[in-house]
């Protein structure tokens, strides 16, 4: 049994055809000479036949085939529409409807449906002869017997009609009766079959929905980002809250304690007249105590509020998360609306393959698989020509002639597989032949002739395959049909890169060649990898990213190749490709492994940011000529992120490398920033003076909290901090930085007058990088700054 959803689609399609046919037959019946609709009817029956065969509904297909033949005869004027014929046609339609209904109910086709119908036709052909025996009636009864279960009334009608058919051809009169009968009994059946679960929607509407979904996705991304910020806020509020509570607690403990002593006094002097002597004491006790109590109460309130705030944030983020899920579900559903099952589209190739094979005198067995894989109609239309092109190449150049094949011990008939499947966020289409494979010697010869490569160049097979995609490269020299592949593969590559797809070739001598096309699921919303380079953020569609890896900075230095699990590939540095300054990295840099038309490249970037679903906006006409980027996307917070087009970028560099045009800009050394945290103005001034004199940018803060605010808004490469400060002391600052995981990128040098080992130990324990003791001089401070500034800023 063919795939369920495929059948659903068939049913939706069939209903349209049945409607059209019904209308047409009625028209023919009432006006036999009007042939205006016959052309459409013929086509409908033809399509119905084809689609039914596709979903393996053989009975429907056969009935439709028979009807198609009759329509053709009517069309060619070989047959006249009699009411008998019209009835027969309706019967055909009804049979199809019944079959559909039974298929939909999961019962499959009635295997004898066609036979019954066919015999009914024969009767019409034999109108002149007397009806031969009870056979038709019998078959009709069998048919009805099956229907009885569900529709006893209808079956009665059917039997009646079956009888009518026998008589009908004799006289034109009864036609009306049939009409009437159909009018009362039959329609019920019709209505039920026509209760469609499908609505036809203009693809533009779906497109618009999809665009809206895209915008929604961006807002959702923004919300998701906000929620994570809210978490940070919550942590900060909690942190501040805890501090407040501990301060207030210690404050109130102090005064409650001091009040306690006086409380004893108070007891003895309570009810009697308050003596003047104690009044002052009492007042003092009262106010302080009340204040401390109040503070404590307020703090408790705050604590409570913080708890509810916290649970509110939790609830909010869980809601945002479920919205996230809902949006991606809707997105999938809407994209699905534009999706067609590839099986429907295979037909277009089947015919073409047959024709091309005939032209080339090849024997081809064309095998298709993955019928049920869904593909975006628009993407399919864009790549249709490319696939056809590859098929044509496979037949013309890949598959040998039957003779050659027999000589090579292969079956004279070549096989081409066309297989489609979904892999994560992409659709993979594979075209595989069992021909002679790609002739590498031939590529080398042509590449040499065209001066694409030098005679002494040592090229791997991968390199040679890559040459196939260069524009203007074609090994199919003039009439030499047996030459290798390569006709217009550059166009194929271009088409694929436009829709963020990729192509790969695998070939084996005498075994055959496989082309693997990878295209995104949807053109509008695609999954991208976000990364930074040269201080900018860029994105790449995930379909182009083979793998993510990393490389040690000292290895990278002047490396030309990158090796990943026995695979060696050229290294490209995005900063160089784009002429950006190297923003420097710690010890390792991320490497994005790209697959550009079958050849692997390792692209080194400065940092990986993440992955998300986003809309890619192509450039307008003004920037159309910019090839290194395929457009832009807008991040959740409104940042523009260009989309790298590696195919163009790496070609660009290949060309400019040859002409020696690579202009690497001198890395601009950026001023490093040091934050001085000290409550003493003179220390801040003195330290600033020294450090600014050494070309550092200096920011200052009077306590830990101020420092935290500053690092939120500024890039800081090193913090020099005192230990004792009001509001938030040095230890607290250190532990907060540690909690936020910032010590790696902004090391802290403690600068204090506390020289004891215990302080020193505690500071180091909390993650301080260095410990300087006041008073300090210029050299010690500068040395310490130089030594401790995060190593990645030393480039």
């Amino acid at each position, binding site marked *: 049994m063919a795939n369920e959803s495929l059948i659903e689609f068939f049913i939706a399609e069939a209903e349209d055809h049945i409607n059209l046919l019904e209308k047409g037959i009625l028209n023919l019946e009432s006006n036999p000479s009007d042939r205006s609709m016959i052309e459409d009817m013929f086509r409908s029956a033809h399509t119905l036949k084809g689609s039914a065969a596709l979903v393996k509904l053989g009975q429907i297909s056969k009935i439709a085939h028979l009807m198609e033949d009759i329509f053709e005869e009517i069309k060619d004027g070989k047959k006249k529409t009699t009411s008998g014929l019209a009835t027969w046609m309706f019967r055909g339609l009804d049979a199809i409807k019944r079959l559909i209904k039974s298929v939909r109910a999961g019962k499959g086709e009635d295997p004898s449906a066609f036979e019954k119908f066919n015999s009914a036709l024969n009767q019409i052909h034999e109108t002149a002869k007397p009806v031969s025996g009870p056979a038709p009636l019998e078959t009709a009864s069998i048919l009805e017997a099956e229907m009885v279960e569900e529709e006893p009334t209808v079956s009665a009608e059917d039997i009646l009609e079956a009888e009518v058919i026998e008589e009908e051809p004799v006289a034109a009169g009864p036609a009306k009766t049939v009409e009437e009968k159909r009018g009362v009994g039959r329609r019920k059946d019709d209505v039920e079959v026509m209760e469609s679960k499908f609505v036809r929607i203009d693809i533009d509407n779906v497109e618009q929905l999809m665009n809206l979904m895209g915008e929604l996705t961006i807002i959702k991304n923004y919300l998701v980002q906000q929620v994570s910020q809210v978490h940070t806020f919550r942590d900060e509020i909690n942190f501040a809250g805890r501090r407040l509570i501990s301060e207030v607690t210690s404050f109130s403990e102090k005064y409650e304690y001091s009040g306690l002593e006086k409380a004893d006094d108070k007891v003895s002097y309570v009810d009697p007249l308050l003596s003047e002597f104690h009044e002052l004491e009492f007042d003092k006790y009262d106010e302080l105590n009340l204040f401390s109590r109040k503070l404590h109460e307020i703090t408790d309130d705050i604590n409570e509020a913080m708890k509810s705030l916290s649970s509110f944030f939790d609830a909010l983020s869980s809601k945002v998360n479920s919205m996230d899920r809902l949006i991606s579900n809707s997105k999938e559903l809407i994209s699905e609306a534009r999706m067609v099952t590839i099986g429907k589209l295979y037909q277009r190739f089947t015919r073409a393959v047959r024709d091309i094979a005939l032209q080339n005198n090849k024997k081809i067995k064309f095998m298709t698989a993955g019928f049920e894989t869904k593909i975006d109609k628009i993407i399919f239309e864009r790549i249709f020509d490319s696939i056809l092109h590859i098929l044509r190449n496979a037949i013309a150049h890949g598959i040998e002639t039957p003779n050659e094949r027999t000589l090579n011990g292969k079956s004279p008939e070549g096989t081409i597989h066309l297989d489609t499947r979904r892999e994560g966020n992409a659709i993979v289409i594979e075209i595989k032949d069992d021909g002679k494979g790609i002739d590498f010697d031939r590529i080398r010869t042509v590449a040499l002739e065209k001066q694409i490569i030098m005679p002494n160049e040592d090229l791997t097979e991968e390199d040679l395959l890559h040459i196939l995609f260069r524009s203007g490269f074609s090994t199919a020299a003039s009439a030499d049909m047996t030459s290798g592949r390569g006709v217009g593969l550059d166009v194929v590559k271009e088409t694929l890169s436009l829709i963020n797809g990729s192509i790969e070739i695998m070939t084996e001598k005498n075994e055959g060649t496989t082309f693997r096309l990878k295209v995104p699921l949807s053109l509008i919303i695609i999954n991208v990898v976000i990364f930074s380079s040269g201080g900018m953020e860029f994105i790449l569609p995930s379909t182009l990213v083979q793998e993510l890896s990393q490389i040690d900075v000292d290895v990278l230095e002047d490396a030309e190749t990158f090796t990943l699990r026995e695979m060696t590939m050229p290294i490209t540095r995005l900063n160089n490709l784009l002429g950006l300054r190297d923003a420097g990295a710690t010890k390792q840099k991320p490497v994005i492994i790209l697959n550009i038309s079958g050849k692997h490249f390792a692209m080194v970037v400065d940092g990986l940011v993440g992955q998300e679903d986003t809309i890619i906006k192509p*450039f307008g*006409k003004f*920037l159309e000529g910019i090839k290194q980027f395929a457009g*832009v996307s807008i991040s959740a917070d*409104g940042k523009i992120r260009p989309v790298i087009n590696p195919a163009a970028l790496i070609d660009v560099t290949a060309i400019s490398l040859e002409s020696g045009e690579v202009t690497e800009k001198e890395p601009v050394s950026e001023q490093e920033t040091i934050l001085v945290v000290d409550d003493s103005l003179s220390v801040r001034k003195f330290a600033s003076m020294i450090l600014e004199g050494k070309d550092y940018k200096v920011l200052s803060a009077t306590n830990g909290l101020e420092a935290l605010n500053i690092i939120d808004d500024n890039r800081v490469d090193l913090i020099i901090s005192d230990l004792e400060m009001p509001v938030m002391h040095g230890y607290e600052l250190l532990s907060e930085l540690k909690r936020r995981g910032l010590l790696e990128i902004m090391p802290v040098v403690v600068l204090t007058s506390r020289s004891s080992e215990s302080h020193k130990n505690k500071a180091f324990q909390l993650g301080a990088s260095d410990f300087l003791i006041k008073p300090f001089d210029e050299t010690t401070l500068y040395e310490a700054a130089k030594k401790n500034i995060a190593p990645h800023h030393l480039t």
Partner: protein
Amino acid sequence: MDNEDLEKLQGFDDLEPLGGLDEEAVHPEINFCTFNVGDLSLTMPIEAVREIIDVSEILPLPRSPEHIRGLVHIRGDVLPVVDMARIYKTAYKSGVEKKLIIADCNNEFLAIMSDGMPDLLEENEEGDLLDMVSFFNEYKVQ
């Protein structure tokens, strides 16, 4: 319906018209938008001006032609910012606030950088008149 009617309808007739102008004053018709690039004065027909905005963050586009200053994000659209100084071989003035004129060239939009706020005029007095469609075609990235 002109402004006056509108104001009356909305019950604003006793309010002083915007800008304190006399109600009888004839509002000058605006036909041109003249802006400065360094010492240069350029004019665009007002039909080509969609809006004039402050310069927000401009993202430079690596390896693009010099006259493409970068990209700017305006309410969901990303527009190219055109560096007129590069095209007219001059330099923007330092210390003058920059504005972006969003120009409509047959439904393709460009952000054109200007020194200071452009003047909206009835008559074009000093600036070289630009035909935005041919400007667009001449300077688009090939």
